[in-house]
Each structure stands twice: as structure tokens, then as C-alpha cells.
């Protein structure tokens, strides 16, 4: 198959990702793109505990992910690319816009300066602007925490 979901979720690998999306989409490879986790064996073990045995997990740096996107897109696995922040996903899209074409905003939670757009999406105005720029460049961006909920278009978050 290919990469079937590119998701931004600041909780990284957790129940919504593995159970919610993993089962519904038949995911068999989760690719967590996070430089910090890629450098920490014990954090990888923690996140691996959240994943059912039939799903493979790969922990990679941003640089490695950019190199491997074409390979993941071409192999026979249904892959989910996961980042913890907007910047990493934007960099992935810049490296390979054909693969990272649709972006799912799955969980971006409250921090100082961010405003609630949806109960699971908080963004500063510059962050919203960065997403709008991605969409203007051809990306399709929706907010949706679970596959059973209705996707919300980026323009509705402004």
C-alpha cells in the first residue's frame, strides 16, 4: 500500500493512534518522527508498549524520515507517519510533498499563547498561519481526533 495517514499529535504514540486509527485503517507500520525519541532507547520501549504486536513501529529522526519516505511509500505496508509538532510535519512535507499531501491534525494541546480552535486543537496565530501556508501550497489539512468523528477543515479553525 503506502503511507495512508500523516498525523500531528503531541502525545505521540497513544491509544487514539494505535486503537482509534490503527484498527480503522488497518495500519501495520507506525513511523514516529521525533529526534528526541529516536535518540532514547527507553522512551522507544515505553511507546512500543502502547502498540499491539501486529503493528511495527519505527522511530526515526527528521533527517532519516525525509530519506526513507519514498521507501515507505513504495513498500507493501499501510503506514502512519506521526509527528509531535507542526514544524516536523512541515519539514517532511517540504521534503516530499507527494507523500505528505494530506495532513491530519490529531492533537495539539494547550500551551501559553495558543488559543482553543477545537477541544483537541490549540494554535497560536502564527501556527495557524503556517498551516494555512501549507494548505496554500497544496496540502489538504483537516482536524480529526478519531476516524469516527467528522473532519474539520482548516479554514474553520480560524
Amino acid at each position: 500500500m503506502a503511507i495512508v495517514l500523516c498525523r500531528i499529535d503531541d502525545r505521540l504514540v497513544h491509544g487514539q493512534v494505535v486503537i482509534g486509527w490503527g484498527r480503522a485503517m488497518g495500519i501495520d507500520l507506525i513511523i514516529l518522527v521525533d529526534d528526541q525519541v529516536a535518540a532514547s532507547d527507553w522512551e522507544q520501549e515505553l511507546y512500543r508498549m502502547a502498540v499491539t504486536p501486529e503493528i511495527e513501529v519505527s522511530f526515526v529522526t527528521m533527517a532519516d524520515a525525509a530519506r526513507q519516505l519514498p521507501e515507505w511509500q513504495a513498500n507493501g505496508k499501510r503506514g502512519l507517519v506521526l509527528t509531535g509538532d507542526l514544524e516536523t510535519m512541515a519539514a517532511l512535507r517540504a521534503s516530499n510533498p507527494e507523500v505528505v499531501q494530506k495532513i491530519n491534525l490529531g492533537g495539539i494541546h494547550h500551551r501559553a499563547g495558543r488559543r482553543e480552535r477545537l477541544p483537541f486543537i490549540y494554535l497560536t496565530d502564527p501556527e495557524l498561519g503556517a498551516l494555512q501556508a501549507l494548505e496554500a501550497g497544496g496540502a489538504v489539512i483537516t482536524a480529526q481526533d478519531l476516524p469516527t468523528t467528522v473532519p474539520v477543515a482548516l479554514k474553520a479553525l480560524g
Partner: protein
Amino acid sequence: MSEELRGVVVCHGALAGALVEAAEQISGLNGVLVPVSNTGCDRDTLEDRVRAAVNGQPAVVFVDLASGSCLVAVLKRLRSEQLVKVVTGVNLAMLVDFVFHRSLSPDEAATRAAAAGEKSIRIP
């Protein structure tokens, strides 16, 4: 132990608050368990909530799932703390046992509570 243990309950959604409320109703002991929810916070905020709840004291931290965001936050913040023990799969039976045994060491209280929790799982 000269200081009684603190109990912290870390769960998804409203579960921790409900478990603590129920444990207080059964035991009659109020204010000895601190609930922490992961609702509405990212990893850093959840880790801060956990750290604030433990407050640097000897404690047993109860977590709902043996994986996921709650456990990750707890272990990232507390894995190096010698006087904090973590028990996963929290249920009401283990909390009720714990609140009456807070003068034990964290190791002993955690082991006891886990055993009480396991014992309460039956198919009657």
C-alpha cells in the same frame, strides 16, 4: 516511614477524579489521593501535573493503562525517584487498600496495592 505516603492517580479523561471520589466514599479518608487527568494537555503539561501532584514526597503513583500518554508522563518524570513507585491497571480495590497502608515504604505499599487490585478481578 516517618512520613505517610502520598497517592497519585493518573488516568485518561475523568477516570482519576471518579476513582478518587469513590475511594474516599468507601474509606472515609479524604484528601490522601490526588487525581491527575490527561485531558486537554500535551506531554509537557501532563508531566508538570504529575510532578506537582507528587510534590517531591514519597508516593505511589497509580496509572490506568500499562502504556500510553499517562504512563509515559509518569515514567519520564519519576523513573529516577527512589521513593516513588508506579502501579499500572489502577482499580478501586487497590486504592482502598492503599489509603489504609500509607505508613509502609513505597515498595511495600505498591506491592500490596497491586496484589489487592489483582485479587479483586474475578469472574464470579
